[in-house]
């Protein structure tokens, strides 16, 4: 025969299981717990009543009741997990967003494109051991011209139309806005002994009418390396590496003879036109090549001018226009855009 308590346990179990299946939220689950597992639940009351039973019945009913209790507790926690999972899913489902809406705007600032390109140029040289130094934009005629072998009445002065400062001394104007960064060659070498390896960026000025390819204020980077045993091969290697870092590994470069009074031999470097891949276009004058810098071996007289031993030391120097590099890189066709500072232009970089 079956004990009536065991019969009751079966009823408790059936009822609890059935009700648990119907529970659909945390609140209902809590009241289910109180009903079926709480202090006043039938199961609990039954367990408390066990004491009045004979020992062997007590053991039999007790074991069954405790097993049921832990089963129901496990059911409860399972149900709880299911419910919270469902709640998370529901919350996520109802929280769908249009992910194509624009982000909440941050105030977005930018560096001027000339600053950006200049930094890349300098970084390329710094990684090759060059140091960055800077100097004055308002210069003496001596540094800008005389010391770099462009004396007064030299025809090469035509290459640099000059803005002179209104400051006369002995009926001459000795002060000017530097026309190039080359005076920094002299200033640097006056300050230090070889080995020298510097790049010097800065603004330069020309007395020049402006058009899409000419601007009276522009930014240059001068480079100078002086040591024992520096040759044109080093010049080529350094500038070749620079061009590839800035314009891509696949770029080809070309060196040709050119004239600057402060170098001998003189050279300029072109890269194959990145716009037409060297096929010839308007930007490169159909030549397929675009000149990007002037260079050469430092003229022995320049070394002598700063007290270096020109027999012992040789070196190379170069100068390049930052705007020109920026124009090539971004396909800009009018140099005047840089210093017009139109936000519609600046915000593109």
């Amino acid at each position, binding site marked *: 025969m079956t004990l009536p308590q065991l019969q009751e346990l079966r009823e408790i179990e059936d009822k609890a299981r059935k009700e648990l299946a119907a529970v659909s939220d945390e609140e209902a689950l809590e009241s289910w717990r109180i009903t079926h597992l709480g202090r006043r639940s039938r199961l609990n009351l039954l367990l408390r009543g066990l004491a009045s039973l004979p020992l062997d019945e007590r053991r039999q009913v007790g074991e069954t009741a405790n097993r049921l209790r832990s089963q129901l507790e496990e059911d409860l926690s399972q149900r709880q997990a299911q419910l919270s999972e469902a709640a998370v899913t529901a919350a996520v489902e109802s929280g769908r967003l249009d992910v194509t809406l624009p982000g909440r705007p941050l105030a977005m*600032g*930018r560096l001027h494109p000339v600053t950006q390109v200049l930094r890349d140029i300098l970084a390329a040289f710094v990684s090759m051991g060059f140091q960055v*130094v800077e100097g004055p934009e308002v210069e003496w005629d001596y540094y800008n011209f005389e010391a770099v072998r462009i004396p007064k009445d030299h*025809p090469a002065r035509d290459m640099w139309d000059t803005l*002179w400062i209104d400051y006369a001394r002995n009926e001459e104007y000795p002060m000017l806005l530097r026309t190039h960064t080359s005076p920094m060659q002299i200033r640097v070498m006056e300050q230090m002994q070889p080995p020298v390896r510097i790049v010097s960026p800065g603004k330069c000025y020309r007395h020049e009418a402006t058009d899409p390819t000419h601007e009276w204020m522009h930014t240059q980077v001068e480079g100078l390396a002086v040591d024992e045993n520096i040759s044109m*091969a080093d010049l080529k290697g350094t500038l070749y590496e620079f061009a590839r870092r800035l314009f891509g590994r696949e770029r080809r470069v070309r060196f040709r003879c050119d004239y600057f009074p402060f170098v001998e031999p*003189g050279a300029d470097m072109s890269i194959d036109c990145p716009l037409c891949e060297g096929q010839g276009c308007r930007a490169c004058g159909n030549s397929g090549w675009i000149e990007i810098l002037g260079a050469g071996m430092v003229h022995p007289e320049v070394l002598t001018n700063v007290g270096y031993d020109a027999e012992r030391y040789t070196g190379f120097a170069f100068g390049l226009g930052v705007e020109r590099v920026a124009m090539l890189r971004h396909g800009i066709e009018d140099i005047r855009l840089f210093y017009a500072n139109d936000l519609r232009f600046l915000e593109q970089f």
Partner: protein
Amino acid sequence: MKVPLKWLREYVDISLSTSELARRLTMAGTEVDAILTTGRDWEKISVAEVVDVSPHPTADRLRLTTVDLGGEQMTVVCGAPNVAAGQKVAFARVGAELIDGHSGEPAILKAAKIRGVESAGMVCSEKELGLSDSHESILVLPEDAPVGTPLGEYLGDTIFDLDITPNRPDCMSVLGIAREVAALSGGSVREPPGDYEEQGRPIKGRLSVEIVDRDLCPRYCAALIEGVQIGPSPPWMQECLLAAGVRPISNVVDITNYVMLEVGQPLHAFDFSLISDRKIVVRRARPGEVLMTLDGTERPLNNDALVIADAKEAVAVAGLMGGAASEVTEKTTAILLEAANFNPANIRRTSTTLKLRTDASARFEKGLSPELAMVGIRRAVRLMVELAGGRAAEGIIDVYPGKKRITRITVTQERLRRILGLQLPTLQVRQTLTSLGFGCRWVPPDRYVVRVPYWRTDVSIPDDVAEELARIIGYDELPITTLRGAIPPAQPQPSRELRERVKDILAAAGMQEVIAYSLTNLESLTKVLPPEELRERPPLRVANPMSQQQEYLRTTLRASLLGTLSSNLRHRQGRIALFEVARAYLPRPDELPQEMESLAGVVTGDRPDRWGQPTGEPVALYDAKAYLEFLFDRLGLTVTYHDGEEFTLVPGRTAEVRLDDQRVGLVGQVHPRVAAAFDIEQDVYLFEVNLEAVVPQVGKPRLYQPLSRFPAVEEDIAIVVDEGVTAAQVQAIIEAFPLVQRAVLFDVYTEAPVPKGKKSLAYSVAYQSLEHTLSEAEVNRERRRILDRLKGQVGAVLRS
């Protein structure tokens, strides 16, 4: 410099294609700027020979002209007076495009009946071919013109437009380019002949030449040609001149121009009969001396100018231009021909002073060889004898005080290797130099002695020789190596580093960097600087400004920044925040100016909403200040803000920024009057920082504050103070207490119930100790002390 290839071929055989020739010249230093072609579109026009000219049956002024086109003959009607049998002419067939002789417009030639005679073609004038305006007569081609050849092939030419660098005056001549071509293509140069028969009487005794200022005239050569007939120069010479861009004038003048373009020596022809006393004096101009030059301009000459004078007066500005009074005219029969050499710097100075640049001065100022004078004059005399029917006097007067020895340079193999980075074989060195006209002798064991040809005035040191070798062999042939050797120790660059950091920080804060011109106008500076400052420390002025807009070096970035803002406001709404880091140029007596690294920023417009659109809530002083706070925080610097005053800014809305009690900048609202001067109608806030003053403070590391293991007690304290008490004062008092770990202002309130003239400040204060958990009693005690001190120092009462 324009060099027609046909002309070039007279002196050198060209074995290369046009494009390859252009490439090699460019690579070797003579840049081919452009390759021009002429006469390529003369379709259906060819060289023909006139075989018969007979009268037109019904018209007196027309002739029936029969031409041979090379096997085929055609008869057309021709109205030109100069047509004659035996001439070589340009003949156009029906369908050719010609310039109409009357209208000047291009038109297609059609078959026509002229006065009853069928005419299917035309003998062309220069105008009809588009060569010149001459239409009266037909173009007569040289006798050797090949019959039947398309005219484009015969007359057309390729012209190199060359960019000659200032060190190579020798390349400002067709012969000079021929020398380059020969060296680059392995050819040899044919020098133009300069010999002639001296049929006239000796020049000696009939002309005297004296050089007074020998420092300015190393050489003066003079020749005499008599019995000259002035007329047009032959077509071949005109063709050369036209192709080179020089207008033909007369045989004598054309010859001087031709020889200048051919060998590079400028020449001048005087009418000998107009030279007073048959005497040439080369001297500096006399005080007040004035000369009317060939171009009809009266030119006052200063004492530095060199003139060619006769016994009475100046007849030419040396090396620049001849005088009108001694000009060769149609009546001239005796020519005094000058080929001289002048001091380059002096020519350049006079050219600059007179604002006169000529083909001659462009050559002299670059330093021609005096040796060239004799080459040029002989060549020109020969051509005058040949083409102008002259008799050359016996001998040439040659005054040559500046004769120099031939330049010889000793070049060691080691020097070449050090410059070029490779060891050239002796044979290659000698061959290359010889191809350029240099002499080269190998002196064992290790050096060359190089003799420089007279025309290469630019070569004087071993490194020049290295360049000659490199450019002819090709720079591309030199090896490529990377720098070896020690990398010099790095010098600190604090100013530059700070500047770049400032740019990064402000861009990260949402500001746009701008870069404006360093030169500005006085008017803009006047808008932002007090008059007394401009008076006492006037900005540097450019002596030769391009325009008044770019006349003064800016002493502040303010003006250009406001200008930039103004121009952008024309097409931009909403918040704009701009900054510039650049130099201000502060004059110093008799010294270069101080170039002070400065920062300026402006903010204006409405704050943006969630969509970035303007909200209608304009930015305020505190938006501008936020950028400075962000900047100094990132730089690790603690600055303080104090009431400030500045010309450009609104009083009471201006703060001075101090670092260690030193003023390093300011921030404030731009005075509406100033803004209006820049056409800005809205509120603008501006800040400025003198970066030079900040540099010494940057780079000190911040000291770490230990974190307490014990809990903090947080509470709000609101106090009421007079309006005049500043937040900074209150903050400083609260933060001075040892248990106050942090005090954050979170509200400022001035409405009722706060009494008029007072304000309420609310702080969230955190108390914390590093040693223990604070008791309530400790916190209460600390708060009481804070309130006591606030009351004592700024009259604060606790807001109930």
